[in-house]
């Protein structure tokens, strides 16, 4: 069998195919934006939650923990830590760090005020109420 295989045609197909699939992707992104209000728990984005997210970010929590499965895998998943441990445990836990137990993984103490702790907990509560298609498989995350 023989045939033609030209660089010009391969190039056209590359550009055409890329534009095509990028537009298809954008169409799906558009639909996602329309659906998100029913899933992303935006009605509970209070001032506390927003402040809590900023504390989450500026302490680089994602550098050890994961949130909805994304981040580092050095410390427990926190997307469902609110239902797993409850607000009081989370606050007490953060205040008692580091444990100093020899040879064990250590978490720094971030010296958060009571208000900051409450905001962080509010953020973790909000995160736990996002519709994640039933992920994680169980409460241990």
């Amino acid at each position: 069998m023989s045939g033609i295989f030209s660089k010009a045609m391969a190039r056209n197909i590359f550009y055409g195919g890329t534009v095509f699939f990028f537009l298809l992707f954008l169409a799906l992104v558009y639909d996602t934006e329309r659906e998100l209000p029913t899933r992303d728990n935006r009605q509970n984005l209070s001032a506390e939650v927003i402040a809590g997210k900023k504390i989450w970010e500026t302490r680089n929590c994602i550098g050890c923990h994961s949130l909805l499965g994304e981040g580092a895998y050095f410390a427990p998943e926190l997307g469902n830590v609110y239902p797993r441990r409850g607000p009081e445990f989370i606050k007490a836990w953060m205040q008692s760090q580091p444990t100093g137990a020899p040879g064990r993984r250590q978490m720094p103490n971030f010296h958060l005020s009571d208000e900051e702790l409450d905001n962080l907990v509010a953020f973790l509560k909000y995160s736990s109420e996002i519709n994640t298609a039933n992920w994680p498989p169980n409460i241990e995350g």
Partner: protein
Amino acid sequence: MNTASATALTPAPPAAQYRLAGDLAIWIFILAELLAFGVFFSAYAFTRAHHVELFDAEQRALHRDVGALNTALLLTASYFVVRAVQAAERFAARASSHWLLGAMVCGAGFIVLKLFEYGAAFDQGVSLSSSPFHMFYLSLTFFHFMHVILGMVILAALWFGARAGRYQPGDMNGMETGAAYWHMVDLVWLILFPLVYVIH
């Protein structure tokens, strides 16, 4: 695959020899697309097996007659494209461009009908998230719909080329490549239509 690229450098083969119509690059693209559709169809069949009643009920709500008309439109368009290729092969550039125009009219008809179908479906609250069947119905048909649009762009390019007399015996690669793509779009619909609209 390297034999093809190697022979591309040698002079045109004797006519009697087997010849791949259209550029090898488009055939690789077509195979990739068919693979994507194929996996999608398998996923459809797999999911349908788990929700037979739901799928049956919601399939019945689709406009099968409009789908059949669309099938006729795409088949006709494919026939016109074949005629356009044949015309170009006997130096009839004008006729070739007319056949392409005909194919584009059929393709446009498909797009218009599909837009009405989508409009009605959206009014009834059909969306990618409204049910497993709707997810597949919209995903598969919209993925295909975008292929028809791309096919129309390609036909338009061929039409301009034909009018400029760019395609003639010995120089048919552009037209054959575009035609091969259009036939792929047609072929996918011939599987999609019975699968999603007809088979219960």
